[in-house]
């Protein structure tokens, strides 16, 4: 950077000597040059001081920088990369362990057991007095952990026609009729599922082209009983409701199995009324030794040494 006045202006030689106005102009130019030099020198000193970075000299600072550069060498970066890879590996192992804990070593689930059936009677026959109807022979059933009466009923439910080209199956079931406080018979429509509060009695197979006109007495319709009969309900259960639960396969079947009774309908159900009737590495079967219904069970399998 040049000083403001590299050449001091010559005094003109056509002026008389000792004219102050002529000399002062030169002095001012010289002062400005000095100030400029001072400012620049001060700036250089500040820059040098900053560059030392607290070190005693620029050389010390350069030495420090050199050492730092040496630390970013390819070898050092390799070390860093190796460390990062190892950390990721360890995280992967941890994730795998968590996954194994949740999917294998400790497994949980929830099931619902419907415990319903017939104590006595409740058989159906085809009506001979009404078109495509069923008669119900009365009896007793159980549901919601208690017994209900199902009175005799003639022409109690009608069987739907099948105008299609293949067999269809519908279901005969009992439901609770609140007005009479008893159970009544009904038949599902084609393609319809059993309602929630149903006791399934029969599967009804209807052949094609079975209508009021072609088969009014249900001659070609087949009733197949699926009644679950528990004649000694509630004391003895001959065909206990069972539920097979599949689990992620474990190394052996000696796992711990805990069952918690979450809720139920009826009188009394405790975990000791839920029996484990079989167990395998990939599942187990629970049986209900109780009269209650709508039993929600929470199960947990654990095998920490899997």
């Amino acid at each position, binding site marked *: 950077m040049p000083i403001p006045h590299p050449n001091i202006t010559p005094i003109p030689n056509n002026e008389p000597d000792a004219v102050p106005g002529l000399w002062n102009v030169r002095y001012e130019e010289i002062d400005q040059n000095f100030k400029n030099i001072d400012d620049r020198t001060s700036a250089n000193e500040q820059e040098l001081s900053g560059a030392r970075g607290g070190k005693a000299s620029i050389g010390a600072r350069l030495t420090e920088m050199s050492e730092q550069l040496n630390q970013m060498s390819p070898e050092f970066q390799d070390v860093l990369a190796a460390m990062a890879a190892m950390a990721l590996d360890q995280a992967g192992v941890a994730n795998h362990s968590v996954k194994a804990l949740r999917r294998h070593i400790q497994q949980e689930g929830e099931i619902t057991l419907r415990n319903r059936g017939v104590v006595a009677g409740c058989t159906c026959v085809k009506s001979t007095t009404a078109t495509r109807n069923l008669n119900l022979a009365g009896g007793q059933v159980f549901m919601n952990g208690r017994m209900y009466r199902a009175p005799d009923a003639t022409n109690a439910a009608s069987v739907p026609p099948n105008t299609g080209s293949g067999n269809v199956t519908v279901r005969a079931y009992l439901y609770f009729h609140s007005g009479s*406080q008893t159970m009544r018979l009904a038949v599902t429509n084609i393609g319809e599922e059993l309602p929630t509060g149903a006791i399934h009695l029969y599967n009804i197979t209807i052949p094609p082209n079975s209508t009021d006109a072609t088969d009014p007495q249900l001659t070609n319709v087949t009733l197949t009983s699926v009644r679950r009969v528990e004649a000694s309900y509630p004391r003895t259960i001959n065909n206990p409701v069972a539920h097979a639960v599949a689990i992620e396969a474990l190394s052996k079947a000696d796992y711990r199995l805990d069952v918690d009774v979450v809720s139920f309908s009826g009188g009394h159900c405790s975990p000791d*009324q839920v029996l484990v009737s079989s167990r395998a590495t990939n599942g187990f079967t629970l049986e209900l*030794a109780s009269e209650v219904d709508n039993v929600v069970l929470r199960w947990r399998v654990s095998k920490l040494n899997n």
Partner: protein
Amino acid sequence: MPSIYNRDSLRANVEAATGGKITVLYTAKGQPSYMHVVSAFNADDVEPGLAAGLHPMFMTNGQAKTERFIGAYPGVVRNGELISLPGEDPAASANFDTFLAQARANGPGWGLMTNMDWSGLGLWCRKNGFVPRGNTNYGKSSDAPWETGVRGDGGLPGNTSGIARTQAGSGPTSWRHDNTHAGIADLVGNVWEWSPGLRLVDGEIQVIADNNAASSTIDLSAASSEWRAIDGATGALVTPGSANTVKIASSGTAAYTLVASSGGAFQSMTNPGTTPVAEAALKVLKLHGIYPVGADLGGDGIWFTLDGERVPYRGGVWNYGERAGVFAVNLYYARSNVNASIGARPAFSL
């Protein structure tokens, strides 16, 4: 698949302890109720010549029952349900309709122990040769004063102050209907028990057929069309207010009118009408427990009023002495009556 035993330990223990005579039924809310299982019996077998076939206690809406479940203990109210539990202070101080609703809240098939139940059990006890005693003298038996129960009010036996109800089943086996620890407790004395299926309307005896009053859906209101009077000549159940129906009175000789002294012995009821109630009708009345089957019913009392509807309670109360008993019947008050001495007992059948 092998059979498995229901591991309900409460029911199993109760049944094991009582030989199956008491079981535990669970209500709609899952509450246990201790119920004595009364096996069906024939009317002729408990009172020869009374009627052929099953005692109507076991006939409801034309359905024969092989058993009837009667609360082993007087009812208590828990969570809005009338249930039978041992050792509890019996429920009281509610009117007929309230107790009926609480019993029916237990679920389908539940109701109150009916008048027909009382009648049938009374005949069974008499035939069995043992008529139970109970809390008839402030916590002890008036007939056997050494027999006591635990008073719910903390009073001592015989202390005539306080509410002297005894805790259900706390008395001896002689306070149970069959003189065993598995019998129905506290039928006699302690608290009156509302007994649907019988009533007086302006002196006319009205009943509900068989044990239909046990149905959990039948209309037992004052205006119900189920009520029937009894034809004095034939015993047929007829429309109330019909001619020649059986009535009750305190005196006189009116046709088809039975005479008794309110507050007197039930067995002293007479049939003095100029046209007396025919034998066929008397049998119907006996089945409904409103005419004595003999002169051996002890001092069991009868009370009545001849105006308006009067709904019965049975068994007597803690201070009625000899007037309390399985044949005692009180037709003095309306269904709205509320008293600390009036309770009810749950019953069940399918």
